[in-house]
């Protein structure tokens, strides 16, 4: 049994005790970055105060401790996503974005030839688009987009055609604009049936429900610490062992080599090959603490809690404003996470966010690094509210109040 209690979670997060403009903060920007609980901050403090040292090459006490901390984090990540091959399938990067660049430049550049096809979707974050365009420009691969339907879900009616000749299907677990969750197991089967590998952008999905790469048949997975209650400065790249072993290095430098002479170098084996330079050690410790914290809450309980908040918010946004506030995303809460992109009649998202700020409400205006999706729906921007495990109905109350103010100010 999970002991999930959102009020207690809220108490655990120092930033939520803060007031802004004389109001309690209503943090509704977890899709941009989550707020770390005290346990995460303290784990990093403890690390710096007692154990910090560079990893891997030291034999003294604190260097061994730091190495154990760092490798312990890797093992925790492997467990959290159920990596079939364990910690040897987990590479630490700086963020989701670097993970996708690693995928494109190492696996992609070495495995793909001109004309090979990479399929993404219209709802992808730029992190899962731009690296493929870069690979198109350098290696001549073709990038195809699975369209998004008017129901804000992937339109799979021509997917077989799109997947013809595809070497990779790379899809977000959950859209950071629409909240749409994709059926990863089904998409993995589709990809594999067409002889393509299957990559997942887990940036949004890993923190708001369970992730199981073994069950779902995921070949590559990318995500960020700062979107799962962890610190900035760390990301994860998961790849199935057989794939990872065949991938050439990406960044070059210390730690990723077996030998360097003045005439060349030999790369190291294992995950070390992909971790050039001093890694984000304290950040790995923080990520480990975040995973422990999320496991304590129970990913399913978190998902259920956020679903309830989303159901309530969707109802009130529709009911309270006579259709003047439109939610850009699915209206039901099945296969949908707690991201609410708002289009407010007559009020630009920037102004919506500015007015909401005066109410202590934190929402994000903009294109949310998903411009293909914005183009698809003819939008320049939305004002996005998004939930986290610590969100409460009173955050939605503040949102509704602030939206009322914005509508009246610009009426």
């Amino acid at each position, binding site marked *: 049994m999970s002991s999930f209690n959102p009020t207690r979670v809220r108490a655990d997060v120092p930033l939520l005790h803060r007031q802004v403009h004389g109001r309690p903060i209503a943090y509704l920007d977890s899709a941009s970055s989550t707020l770390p609980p005290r346990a995460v901050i303290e784990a990093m403090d403890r690390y710096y105060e007692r154990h910090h040292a560079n990893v891997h090459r030291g034999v003294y006490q604190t260097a061994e401790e730091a190495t154990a901390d760092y490798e312990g984090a890797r093992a925790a990540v492997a467990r959290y996503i159920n990596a079939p091959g364990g910690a040897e399938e987990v590479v630490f990067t700086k963020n989701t974005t670097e993970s996708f660049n690693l995928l494109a430049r190492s696996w992609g550049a070495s495995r793909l030839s001109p004309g090979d096809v990479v399929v993404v979707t219209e709802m992808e974050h730029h992190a899962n688009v731009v690296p493929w365009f870069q690979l198109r420009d350098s290696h001549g691969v073709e990038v195809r987009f699975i369209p998004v339907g008017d129901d804000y879900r992937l339109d799979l009616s021509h997917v077989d055609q799109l997947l013809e000749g595809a070497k990779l299907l790379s899809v977000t677990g959950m859209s950071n604009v629409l909240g749409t969750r994709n059926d990863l197991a089904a998409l993995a089967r589709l990809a594999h049936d067409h002889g393509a590998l299957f990559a997942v952008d887990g940036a949004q999905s890993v923190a708001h429900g369970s992730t199981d790469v073994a069950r779902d048949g995921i070949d590559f997975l990318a995500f960020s610490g700062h979107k799962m209650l962890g610190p900035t400065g760390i990301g994860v790249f998961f790849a199935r062992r057989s794939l990872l072993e065949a991938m050439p290095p990406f960044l070059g430098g210390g730690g990723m080599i077996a030998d360097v002479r003045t005439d060349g170098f030999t790369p190291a084996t294992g995950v070390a090959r992909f971790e050039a330079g001093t890694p984000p050690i304290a950040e790995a410790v923080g990520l480990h603490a975040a995973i422990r914290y999320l496991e304590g809450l129970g990913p399913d309980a978190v998902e259920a809690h956020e679903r309830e908040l989303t159901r309530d918010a969707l109802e009130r946004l529709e009911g309270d404003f006579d259709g003047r506030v439109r939610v850009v995303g699915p209206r039901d809460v099945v296969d949908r996470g707690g991201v609410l992109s708002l289009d407010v009649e007559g009020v630009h998202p920037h102004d919506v966010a500015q007015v909401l700020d005066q109410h202590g409400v934190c929402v994000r*205006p903009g294109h949310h690094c998903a411009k293909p999706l914005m183009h698809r729906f003819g939008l320049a921007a939305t004002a996005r509210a998004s939930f986290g495990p610590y969100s409460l109905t009173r955050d939605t109350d503040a949102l509704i109040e602030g939206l009322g103010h914005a509508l009246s100010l*610009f009426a």
Partner: protein
Amino acid sequence: MAPLDDLYREIILDHYRTPRNRGELPTPPAHRVEGFNPLCGDEVTLYLELRDGRLADLKMTGRGCSISQASASLMGAAVKGKSLEEVEAALERFRRLMTVTETRLDDGGEPEPLDVRSLGELAALAGVVKFPVRIKCAMLAWTTLAQGLDEAAADAP
């Protein structure tokens, strides 16, 4: 942070709701220039008709937040029909207004009164500097104008 009223003055809301000089001009003779704020997706397109050393006519299209659109509308009203020297001077004054640091505002109250007076209605945008992220919004039309004038000068026979 300052209250919202500093930002959303009545003049600004008015120009946002009823933007002046909307529309297009035939190119040529007009010069067309686009401005773009990648962070929030705000866009403005200016049509500049230069004649006899003046900005003889100006129209604009675009979309964006109240600040970027009102600033564009206020700018149009301020520079249309003016000599290029006057336009340059207005540009410079507005740039200076937007770079008054928040700190200076905080301890000095309003920015230099001379500046504000010489700006006319544009002074309504003075409150924007208290909201640093919005400065880019207010500047968009102006940097686009500056770029357009440069391009037009380069194109001129």
